[in-house]
């Protein structure tokens, strides 16, 4: 009985902590820019504000625009439920999970892109078309990178993969992990819409990718979209840590060590947020048509990771 409660707690933890992670990224960026910046709790205040606000929906919007935030929110939570965070046991666990994760992301993206076009606003459509362009490149990379880690352990079940990575320390000495780590890091930047790929803080509509698709949303639905984006960010960090930096993930899911593991995982998330903020601050946004180069580098890295697995 208790493991199930813990598994549910794990899901709630990631959903609940995701705005804080966003707050920490923002605070770190502000600090690096010599500003004070908003409090790390600001995303929570924002969420509360969105939930209480009236909504303005374009008269041209169809049902698609209205259901998208719920679809995106639900798919993101589904992925969260499959993810080992501070212990390897997860709420949902089955073979083929890895493939499902990739396609749940794909589904959320598909709906977001459609809703961007749906209202007929030019910025939304531009955002959608760019996002499709980027994701067409990012999706195979995500898949091969996940595969690179899954191959040595010969399963597509996230729980089993993480378990073996955590217990088999020898695996961590293999170059596969380092190559996959690099590829994964590029992916995290791309998937969470950060500089150098996208700029989450810009007001320049003409340059937007992810934010462009959300321009027409307001109130509750905007809140859901934002929260989903923050969850996805926390999720990508967790996925990266499950696969490549698995220290501190509890195998048993019980005992006094669990609390220590919980704290340790939380600290890892915070460190990850700070690292991402540093990367964002030391780069400028690259020219849009240069994104394929960045992603093909990630793709090459993950392919090499797979090949290395068989050669060494």
């Amino acid at each position, binding site marked *: 009985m208790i493991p199930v409660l813990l598994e549910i707690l794990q899901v709630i933890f990631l959903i609940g902590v995701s705005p804080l992670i966003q707050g920490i990224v923002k605070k770190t960026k502000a600090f690096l820019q010599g500003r004070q910046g908003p409090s790390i709790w600001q995303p929570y205040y924002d969420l509360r504000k969105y939930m209480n606000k009236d909504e303005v929906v374009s008269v041209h919007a169809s049902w698609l625009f209205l259901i998208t935030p719920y679809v995106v929110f639900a798919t993101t939570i589904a992925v969260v439920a499959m993810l080992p965070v501070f212990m390897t046991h997860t709420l949902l666990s089955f073979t083929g999970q890895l493939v499902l994760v990739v396609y749940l992301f794909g589904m959320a993206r598909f709906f977001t892109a459609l809703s961007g076009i749906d209202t007929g606003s030019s910025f939304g459509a531009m955002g959608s078309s760019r996002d499709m362009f980027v994701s067409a490149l990012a999706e195979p990379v995500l898949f091969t990178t996940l595969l690179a880690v899954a191959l040595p352990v010969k399963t597509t079940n996230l729980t089993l993969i993480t378990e073996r990575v955590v217990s088999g320390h020898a695996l961590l000495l293999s170059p596969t992990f380092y190559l996959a780590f690099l590829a994964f890091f590029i992916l995290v930047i791309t998937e969470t819409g950060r500089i150098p790929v996208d700029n989450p803080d810009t007001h320049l509509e*003409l340059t937007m990718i992810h934010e462009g698709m959300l321009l027409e949303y307001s109130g509750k639905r905007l809140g859901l979209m934002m929260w989903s984006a923050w969850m996805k960010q926390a999720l990508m960090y967790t996925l990266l840590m499950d696969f490549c930096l698995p220290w501190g993930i509890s195998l048993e899911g019980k005992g006094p060590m669990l609390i220590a593991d919980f704290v340790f995982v939380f600290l890892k998330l915070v460190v990850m947020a700070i690292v991402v903020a540093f990367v964002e601050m030391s780069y400028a946004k690259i020219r849009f048509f240069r994104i394929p180069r960045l992603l093909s580098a990630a793709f090459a890295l993950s392919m090499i990771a797979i090949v290395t697995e068989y050669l060494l």
Partner: protein
Amino acid sequence: MKTTRVIVGPQELLNACCTVINDHGRFITMVASDECGMGIDRFVVRYIFAHDGKSMLTVVESVVPESDPTYPSVSSMIPAASWAEREAHDLFGIFPIGHPDLRPLVLHEHWPEGVYPLRKDYALTEKQEQDFSRSWSYPKVEGEGVFEVPVGPIHAGVIEPGHFRFQVMGDSVLHLEAKLFYTHRGIEKRSEGMPVEKGLYLAERICGVCSVSHALSYVQAIENISGTEVPERATFLRVLFAEMERLYNHVGDIGNMCAGIGYAYGINHGARLKEQLMQMNDFVIGHRFLRGSIALGGITENITEEKLMFIEVTLQQVQKDLNEIVGQILSHDTVVNRFSNAGVLSEQIARELFTVGPTARASNYDVDVRRDLPYAAYSQLAFDVPTLTQGDVLARFKQRFLEARQSFQIIEQVIKNMPKGDICVPIGDLHPYSFGIGITESPRGENLHFVMTGENNTIYRYRVRSAPYANWPAVPLCVPGNIIPDFPLINKSFELCYACCDR
């Protein structure tokens, strides 16, 4: 400055203008006016040309009669005259025959037809009902996969309004139309009948960031009419203020261009240095944007030795930091990659449209009023006019840095050689119905003010040709071939005001 007037009949206009152009005249603008008050029937058009290096202006003028308010368009030969002729068409109802594009410019489509606000019989307070029957027309680009992306006039940031219509194929821009003049405040109409002293306050408020330059152009136009000799100390202090204005603008733009690509290091250090300069402005003159510094016949307030010392010390610090920051920015791969080859303004377009300022100089069109038509104390100071050849965003970025370095030098010389003496002389009575032209180099290029006096030291006609007015037509020509996400960066690299273009 010597002004040569060439008076011709309307039919001779085109010939006369071409002759001046062939004689290495540089077209600046055309000023139309309604001179029924002087017993002339009724409109006068004046094409103003500069002879750089000779410190001389040529004004080709012609009367356009009320009974047949037409004249041959000069735009077909001098494309740079296009906007001025469209503006005269909107505001005076005089028709340039053979003009290639006579869509409204200043007054948008809902302004009723046949109402011309700058005519003398149009009262300042007259109100108009909007006429919704007319609509704006844009050239269309057609074909499979071609889309139209309308942007603005209201933007997401706190920036001025302008409507941009992109015809795109994917993210590549095929054609761009810019519709400006959303901030037309009728400054020229308002000034008519104002005492010239009050007109100065209006001139200072044409633009937020070029206050000194506009005020200086205005007072030079008036001093030109009255023949006033400005005391030497005032001319030096005018240079000081003008260069202080250039510095805070150029430094701010350097940071602002980094905002176009989200490069936090450049954005924040640019903003920090700009703030430091503006606080210096505030300390020295009492206004962050340097308003209220220029007076008719001189300047408003003497600057003490301590303040001059303070400027010297502050600028040494800023110069050191700026060198370091620009070095850092230009050694960043991504930044250089984004800046280079974006929004190229070819030398040919820069010359044919008679663009001005850093924009022109970054495209190898070497024109700078401070050297070519010297005013204030510029002729007594040693400085270079840097030019670059590439004409892309990177060139305009570097151009601002190179010019800022010259400004540091100029200010140093000004402080070292500052003469003693009066700072202001009275301008006396102005001869009615005579005109004067004042030209200065603002941070964005040359600002021309044309002032014609009425009776009792009032303004009869006032026309402002700001630097953005000359450069805006070049911007849409630089964008096709680039991708939409690069447009904000290209636009920032020109950094043109909307308000002082619209007036």
